[in-house]
């Protein structure tokens, strides 16, 4: 699986589409909860999709520091790289 930040960004955008009810343009700066106007449960369910996609665990404790798509991309990239190492 290719897991460079750009690939991860594309994946995450695809996984976020079902939550993107208003069809806004997703960029690195998009704030997942605030801009997409989704509740905490929906965010946690979306995170599970990301976990499945990359075979990783993202502890709930870390979610409070992840606001933007870019932060999530970097977080996932970090986990995936450490897994390979």
């Amino acid at each position, binding site marked *: 699986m290719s897991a460079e930040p750009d690939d991860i960004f594309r994946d995450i955008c695809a996984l976020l589409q079902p939550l993107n009810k208003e069809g806004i343009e997703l960029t690195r700066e998009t704030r997942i909860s605030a801009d997409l106007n989704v*509740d905490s*449960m*929906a965010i*946690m369910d979306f995170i*599970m999709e990301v976990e499945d996609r990359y075979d*990783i*665990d993202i*502890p*709930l*404790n870390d979610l409070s520091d992840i606001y933007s798509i870019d932060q999530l991309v970097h977080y996932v990239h970090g986990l995936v790289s450490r897994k390979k190492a």
Partner: protein
Amino acid sequence: MDLLEKHKGLAERHALMQALGVETIGVTMEKILSPTRALINGRETILAGTNNYMGITFDPSCIEAGRRALAEQGTGTTGSRIANGTYALHRELENELSRFLNRDHVITFSTGYQANLGMLAGLAGPQDTIFLDADSHASIYDGCTLSGARLIRFRHNSAADLEKRLARHDGEGGRLVVLEGIYSMFGDRPPLDEFVDVKRRHDFALLVDEAHSTGVLGEHGRGLADEAGLEDEVDFIIGTFSKSFGAIGGFGASNHPDFEFIRYATRAYMFTASPSPASIATTLQAVRVLDARPELRDSLRRNSARLHTGLRDIGLELCCDEVSPVIAVRVRDEPSTVIMWDALLKAGVYVNLALPPGTPNNTCLLRCSVSAAHSEQDIDTIISLFAKVVAGAAGDAAASA
């Protein structure tokens, strides 16, 4: 800056409901007539959203026990057991529960919510990892957060997903897996045997919140683990006095030899007032009633099966295929759910309005809870009101679609 600004979304949601002509948060029961009846807006209403599973809130022996404790021991304990001391009644309740639950140690808390805060924060710390089911109750999420442990959420009722996550875990610190006996919104239960199987392959402690299953499931009414014959595999249980016991309070129980030390380590026990004498006394008597009257469980099962079948037969979509005292009807969207809930209330039946994010998978629910105290006639009335209000509306929507 206005601190309450952050809750603007709630105000908007409330305004939307009012625009639909529905008052959802102001429902007041003017008079409680029985475990299954109250006066609401001046009208006698069947209660089908109480969690009063055994229907013993008006049991004469419980009321008498509460009255006596109130007269003899006063209105409140005015402090925590750590600071102000334990009443003999607290001990008596813990001993009686320990016998009923067949567990060596029981610690009582002031509510079920606090039992979860106190137990989870007492068991796990920042070095540990808690694996919790995705559909866990808010009090479990809050207890987990309070513990400071690393929190890993696994897919609802999936032992396979839990196992995958355990295998990925670095194995550092202690590991605690948290399930519920009956999930509060959908009424479904976990495949406990599959989780126990995973436990044989991976090292962790297993905790089950039996809030909705104590008194309800199992040969002895001890909950899911009792029903599954797997009590030895469940290391810790949590429960509440607010449902089957018809009172208020909660408990944690275990056979772990050091369990008692949780009392001196967990803030939700140490820094809050202990339950009042009357609460303890009615709960204590309720444990005895549940023990002496297993037929209440049978009535509950019969009533649950009757409502389950009845609602399914009128074409409603239920969230759980198994019969359970929690029966949730899925509705397509929030406005319809709110309107149907209100129409049911006006027609004479009170159920719970359950909306996201308080529900799994973004679902909108009309949630019923069945009581042993419902009569067959009550159940049939509930079904016919659902047929009139909900099945009718669903049909109209399909026709106009």
